């Protein structure tokens, strides 16, 4: 504990030595620019002074020190007998200055530009001049944004080759990250995250995000870390950089380094921010308002041929109730009684602002404070943070408390040790959502009639009569606001990561380091739906049964709510030990060797429980009494379930770097990963992952040295193997224990085989080439890095259909192959650098070309899922050729000719003989159907990247960062289906126009052969088409490009004299606007181009922040 009292000790020591000390005064300047160095540490090292603390034979070591202020000045009282002080600052060479009299100016030399930057691999650090790999290092201070809870979100547009996609907005969404494309079809596609050397468990997201998992709450361990505690992030991209992580690193590695204490006096850093999340612009959705919706329903009422859900919509209800439909159809509105007209007109005025009911503007806060400092023997960093965000969608919240403690000890000349503790508690909430699409607020907002009111005149919730909430033929009342108020969906995460290390220097060239990391993640999910909620009503209806005794229908769900608790506990330890050896001969040969072992074991325990008849006041549930034994195995009512996943890994690894004459670097790395592939012969459990790479520091050559404006020129190349394994398939029959009740009252244990054995199963392998150039010009004022890569993945595991006579429909086999190749460009420049004004720019752009080299098509699929020679995420469409005279779509065939709808789909009436006009069918086989589709383009962007411009003028600084995503094919969700336009729901204004015949969208029609000559086409669109290909017309597809200005941040640093007054070294205020502008292709009908086509996503919101930060 006394370590944290250092600031106090420091003061005491100063007083104790007051009589015999002298004062040192000076100014620290940058030796090149002669600008003041602000915040440099001037410190009396412990080895230079030791004072008697009054306890016999004990000496207190402590640091005396000071920091330079805004003008570079410092003052420090030092003991009279002191010889020298040490001055240091990040990016400068540390110097020792003999104690001097009077005032002196001290020049700090920049530390060899960025050449001494190190690449943090999570094992040994590699000096940048020895680099042979493709990586990016980001200083978190440069990318920090207010109102972003998690660091992953901040990586958008910062790293060439890292593609970040947001499928959802709101505080609980997690972005999908892909580094250099996708190399696995079914295996994990997410990068490996490493925090202070500890590879983190539980960071995988589902590979496919759909409506059912879009809004489910996940806690990614990365989200528990306060970005303020992170110093820098290194993204390892090519095989040479990632091979040290073995099999888990095929998708790239993101290494996070947290902040650590530096020698010097205690430094207190506080920051407080508030930010306002804006309510999304509801108008972007282009929905009909109450007036337009009434017009729409009136037009629909006139159409005698449109017989889909005819009774729906308030207008139709009014007409039906007054028995006035025929009168209206013959005589129009004028033919209606004044009462009826009045009721209809009333609807026009009854505009509910659903944007306000479901979304909000929210005021949020974010605070953090840290203390850091230390001396030669001990350095510390201690911080705590609080983050509270309410999403733009009502009911979506995040609150996080975090605590970080990092300690480093130099025990003696030979021993170093340290421990990091990262703890956090997060509480997340989202609106509850079940299988019915309208329970998703984002989707409901599009469906709900604008005249529909939340409450009736008496203040009770009114239930939407137009939604299709049915269970067992019973209509289930739904009200979106009631649903939100009476349900709860929350996830609490308690996380602790602890990493300790011990390093022993055997001889100066040889050291042994051991690191032990622990991760605990406790996730508690609660889903509660009170009795008065759609969720519970629906379940209750599902429990209806016919009671033979009383001859009535009864429900066996007890009265009350429904509560579900899932507890998921992740534990892992990771213990790695390695030897490092460095040796330099003749000043020409530099050799670094490293080798070691790693043991890792993780256990994931899942417990889920469910209770029914839950009373929120007594917090108790009731037992279900099943009417018969059939329901006993019904998973919906299963009260308790437990599961485990346990994995262990043992690995051996080693790498070597050899540098000749500072010019040529060769690097080799190999790692054997063994894992608990259950029952697999031990010799097949180990997979070798290796890489070989080299680089040439051209400027070190005599013939060019100092002769050009070039300040850095390095050529790099690497080759390596990356791998992945599937854990769900075994080379022989493996069963799982289960239970089954064949006869009531006699449950039996079973051994269930879920997969056929595949003895030809292999690891997925990716061969990876990389070539790159690093270029520095004009003393590295301009830096350019270009990389080209080619990654060929073979033996990708995918499902293959199996004759059912095997007892299984499909099997996982290694058959697919894919290639990713791409180019990445990173430019960073400091165009203007004067004492008053500076301007710098960071820019990156990347292009990835993903191609499937070998795939097997699912013979049953009607639409192509994947095609050889096309990207994994390809878009396939049916090419249309305009509307015919009836407003029905025509199509362009593969040969260029145009077909009518019926011809194109090969429609005929299978029942023409006995029940003509009842149903339509296609004569196409699945393969014929598949062949109709044309490849349109990739759903992955062609180019991704970002640009940040930073300006500084005197005490003002401004940073503008932008992210761009170019040429990505997206498809909008059609707002309607021409055969089943439901007058009971709202649509975009397009539909009103389609009804009025003002657009080129397909006309509405009936499926009835009596009402519509083209009934076959409409029947096909309504439900006979097995894949609803209306959604895959090319008219919905579009090439989307956008540039998002994701952050504009303006800061003002108070002059030193002013901050001194409150005792601060540095005081800064800043304002920031996030996501203020998006420039891009038209994205009408959606909130944002990034979530284009998605009806279920929470909006990505704009926010404004105001913040204060100070250091003391």
């Amino acid at each position, binding site marked *: 504990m006394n370590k944290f009292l250092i600031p106090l000790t420091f003061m005491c020591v100063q007083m104790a030595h007051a009589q015999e000390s002298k004062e040192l005064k000076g100014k620290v300047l940058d030796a090149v620019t002669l600008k003041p160095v602000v915040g440099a540490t001037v410190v009396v090292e412990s080895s230079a002074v030791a004072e008697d603390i009054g306890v016999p034979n004990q000496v207190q070591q402590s640091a005396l020190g000071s920091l330079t202020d805004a003008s570079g000045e410092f003052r420090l009282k030092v003991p009279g007998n002191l010889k020298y002080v040490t001055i240091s600052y990040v990016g400068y060479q540390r110097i020792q200055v003999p104690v001097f009299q009077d005032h002196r100016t001290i020049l700090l030399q920049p530390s060899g530009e960025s050449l001494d930057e190190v690449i943090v691999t999570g094992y040994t650090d590699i000096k940048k001049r020895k680099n042979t790999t493709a990586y990016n290092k980001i200083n978190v201070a440069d990318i920090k944004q207010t109102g972003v809870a998690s660091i992953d979100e901040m990586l958008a547009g910062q790293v060439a080759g890292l593609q970040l996609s947001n499928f959802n907005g709101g505080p609980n969404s997690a972005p999908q990250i892909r580094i250099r494309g996708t190399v696995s079809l079914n295996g994990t596609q997410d990068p490996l995250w490493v925090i202070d050397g500890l590879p983190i468990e539980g960071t995988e997201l589902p590979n496919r995000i759909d409506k059912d998992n879009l809004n489910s709450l996940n806690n990614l361990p990365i989200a528990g870390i306060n970005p303020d505690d992170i110093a820098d992030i290194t993204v390892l991209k090519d095989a040479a950089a990632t091979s040290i992580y073995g099999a888990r690193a095929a998708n790239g590695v993101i290494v996070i380094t947290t902040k650590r204490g530096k020698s010097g006096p205690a430094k207190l850093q506080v920051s407080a921010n508030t930010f306002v999340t804006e309510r999304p612009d509801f108008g972007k959705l282009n929905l009909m308002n109450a007036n337009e919706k009434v017009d729409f329903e009136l037009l629909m009422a006139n159409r005698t041929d449109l017989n889909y859900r005819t009774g729906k919509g308030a207008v139709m209800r009014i007409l039906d109730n007054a028995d006035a439909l025929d009168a209206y159809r013959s005589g129009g509105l004028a033919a209606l009684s004044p009462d009826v007209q009045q009721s209809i007109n009333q609807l026009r005025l009854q505009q509910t602002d659903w944007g306000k009911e479901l979304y909000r503007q929210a005021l949020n806060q974010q605070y953090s404070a840290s203390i850091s400092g230390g001396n030669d023997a001990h350095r510390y960093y201690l911080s705590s943070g609080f983050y509270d965000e309410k999403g733009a969608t009502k009911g979506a919240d995040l609150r996080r408390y975090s605590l970080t403690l990092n300690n480093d000890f130099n025990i003696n000349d030979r021993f170093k040790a340290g421990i990091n503790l990262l703890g956090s508690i997060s509480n997340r909430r989202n609106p509850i959502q079940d299988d019915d699409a309208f329970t998703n607020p984002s989707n409901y907002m599009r469906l709900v009639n604008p005249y529909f009111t939340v409450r009736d005149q008496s203040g009770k919730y009114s239930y939407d009569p137009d939604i299709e909430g049915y269970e*067992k*033929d019973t209509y289930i009342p739904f009200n979106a606001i009631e649903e939100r108020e009476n349900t709860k969906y929350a996830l609490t995460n308690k996380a602790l990561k602890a990493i300790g290390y011990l390093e022993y220097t055997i001889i100066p060239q040889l050291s042994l380091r051991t690191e032990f990391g622990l991760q605990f993640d406790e996730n508690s999910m609660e889903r509660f739906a009170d009795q008065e909620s759609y969720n519970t009503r629906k379940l209750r209806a599902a429990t209806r049964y*016919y009671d033979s005794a009383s001859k009535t229908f009864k429900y066996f769900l007890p009265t009350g709510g429904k509560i579900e608790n899932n507890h998921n506990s992740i534990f892992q330890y990771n213990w790695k030990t390695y030897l490092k050896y460095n040796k330099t001969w003749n000043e020409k040969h530099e050799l670094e060797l490293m080798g070691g072992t790693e*043991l890792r*074991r993780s256990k994931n325990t899942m417990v889920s429980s469910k209770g029914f008849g839950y009373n929120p006041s007594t917090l108790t549930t009731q037992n279900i009494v099943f009417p*018969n*034994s*059939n329901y006993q195995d019904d998973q919906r009512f299963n009260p308790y379930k437990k*599961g*485990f*996943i*346990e*994995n*262990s*890994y*043992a690995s051996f690894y080693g790498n070597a770097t050899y540098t000749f004459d500072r010019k040529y670097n060769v690097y080799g790395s190999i790692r054997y990963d*063994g*894992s*608990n592939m*259950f*029952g697999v012969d*031990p010799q097949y*459990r180990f997979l070798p992952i290796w890489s070989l790479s080299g680089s040439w520091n051209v400027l070190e050559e005599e013939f060019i040295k100092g002769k050009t404006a070039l300040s850095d020129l390095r050529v790099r190349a690497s080759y390596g193997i990356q791998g992945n394994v599937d854990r769900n398939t075994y080379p*022989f*029959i*493996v*069963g*799982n*224990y289960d239970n*089954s*009740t*064949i*006869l*009531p*009252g*006699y449950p*039996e*244990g*079973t*051994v269930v*085989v879920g997969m056929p*054995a595949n003895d030809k199963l292999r690891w997925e392998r990716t061969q990876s080439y990389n070539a790159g150039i690093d270029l520095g010009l004009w003393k590295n004022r301009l830096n350019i890095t270009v990389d080209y890569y080619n990654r060929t993945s073979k033996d990708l595991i995918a499902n293959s*259909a*199996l*004759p*059912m*006579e*095997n*007892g*299984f*429909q499909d099997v996982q086999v290694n058959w697919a192959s894919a290639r990713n190749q791409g180019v990445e460009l990173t430019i960073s420049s400091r165009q203007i650098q004067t004492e008053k004004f500076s301007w710098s720019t960071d820019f990156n752009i990347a292009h990835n070309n993903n191609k499937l080299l070998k795939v097997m098509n699912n*013979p*049953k699929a009607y639409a192509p899922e994947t095609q050889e020679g096309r990207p994994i995420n390809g878009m396939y469409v049916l090419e249309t050729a305009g509307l015919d005279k009836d407003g029905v779509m025509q199509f362009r065939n593969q040969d260029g000719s145009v077909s009518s709808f019926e011809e194109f789909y090969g429609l005929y009436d299978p*029942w023409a003989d*006995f*029940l003509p006009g*009842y149903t339509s*069918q296609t004569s196409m086989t*699945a393969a014929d159907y598949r062949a109709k589709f044309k490849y349109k383009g990739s759903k992955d962007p062609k180019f991704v990247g970002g640009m940040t411009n930073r300006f500084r003028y005197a005490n003002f600084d401004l940073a503008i960062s932008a992210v761009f995503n170019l040429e990505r094919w997206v498809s909008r969700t059609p707002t309607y289906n021409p055969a089943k336009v439901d007058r009971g729901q709202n649509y975009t204004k397009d539909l009103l126009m389609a009804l009025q015949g003002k657009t080129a969208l397909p006309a509405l029609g009936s499926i009835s052969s009596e009402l519509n000559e083209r009934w076959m086409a409409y029947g096909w669109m309504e439900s006979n088409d*097995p894949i609803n290909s209306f959604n895959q017309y090319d008219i919905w597809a579009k090439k989307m490009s956008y540039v998002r200005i994701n952050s504009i941040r303006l800061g003002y640093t108070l002059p030193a004299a002013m901050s001194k007054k409150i005792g601060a070294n540095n005081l800064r205020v800043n304002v920031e606007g996030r996501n203020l502008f998006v420039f891009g292709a038209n994205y009408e009908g959606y909130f944002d181009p990034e979530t284009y086509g998605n009806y279920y996503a929470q909006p990505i919101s704009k926010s404004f922040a105001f913040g204060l930060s100070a250091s003391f």
Partner: protein
Amino acid sequence: MTASVLTSCNKYLDIQPVGTVIPTSESDFRGLMTSGYTSFPAHKSYLSLRTDELLLDESSTDAARTKDIYLWNDQNPDPATTAYPYLAFYKSIFYSNQIISTIDEKLTSNANVDQIKGEAYLMRAYAHFELLNCYSEVYSTSNVGLRGVPLSTKIDLEQRFVPATIGDSYTQVLSDMEKGTALLTVDDQAKGANYRFSKRGAYAMASRLHLYRGEWKEAIETAEKALTINSRLVDLNAIGSKLPNDFESEEMIMALEKVSIPEVRSSSFISPSLLSSYSEGDLRKGRYFQKRGGDYVSLKGGENRFNVSFRNAELYLTIAECNVRLGNTAEALKYLSALKKNRFTVDAYAKETKADATLSKEQLLDAVLLERKLELALEGLRWYDLKRTTRPTITHASFGRTVTLQQNDPRYVIRYPQEAINNNPDLLK
């Protein structure tokens, strides 16, 4: 040194995942066998829709999935239609194959091990037999060369499954049945375990198989073997008597199959023609059916309590039928009357026996077949009985449309499900 490091490493990597097992113990093999039973399909429930026993309830939401089964539209069913079970048969066969191929190397023979292995053979025989009943022609000397079903007797993902002839298919079924019966050590399964094969169950299965093959003598012999172990019948006159198809009833032999699943129950009513076949004093009408609204629904199914594969009443009827066919009318009457005694009121029974005694051989055969229809109603056997006997014309109406299954219609043999053909084009060979 290296070896010891590797050994300790392998130890570190040896995690037996909780709940996961490579089957080795006796209880593991029992668990595999139970999975084989659990996987067995409820195809008989769908078959009931094809017979004259049910009417489609058009207002039911489940009707969308059962409509095309009801209309015998196997060629181009609506995509929503539930596919006829196919995979599930082979899933059960897979478990059998796994047991048969590995049990001897993992375990030494004893009464329990032999019983499990015997059950595996019988399950393989029964699953293939049921596949034949659904997807092939009836066995007869003139039909042996026709297409039977693909035989699965080993686990090998690369083997091809070309349908065997009917003759070869039955050879395999008979051989498995024989091997299995010889291995069984349990004569009669206890209540709760009576979803498993016992000797009694094996004989009952053999009896049905021979009946369907027209081997009357063998059918009688095997039925008698089963009845020697237990020949009781439920007496519906007794107060508190259970339904004969209740797994706890005294005449239950094997209660494995779900013959009336919710999807079918909720989309159908009992056909008036079936209801009107029950005469005055037949206790079954009141016990089997119940009026709901204007229609009748079945009380025989809907819960796993009413699982049934074999029960004594069927054996009585088999013996009666085979004896008539062999010309032993007296013997046939004896068994028919024994059953009726337990199914009719005392008065009605007296009337029935009197009337039966006067019947000609042909009339008696009809009477026995009618009794099969009444006794085994909705137990999934009606379709097979129609198929192997008269193959009559059946008319089904749905949504205002009437479809007729013609006399001797080829659709008495069900087409292989499309999904099975998709995965195995050899099925069309």
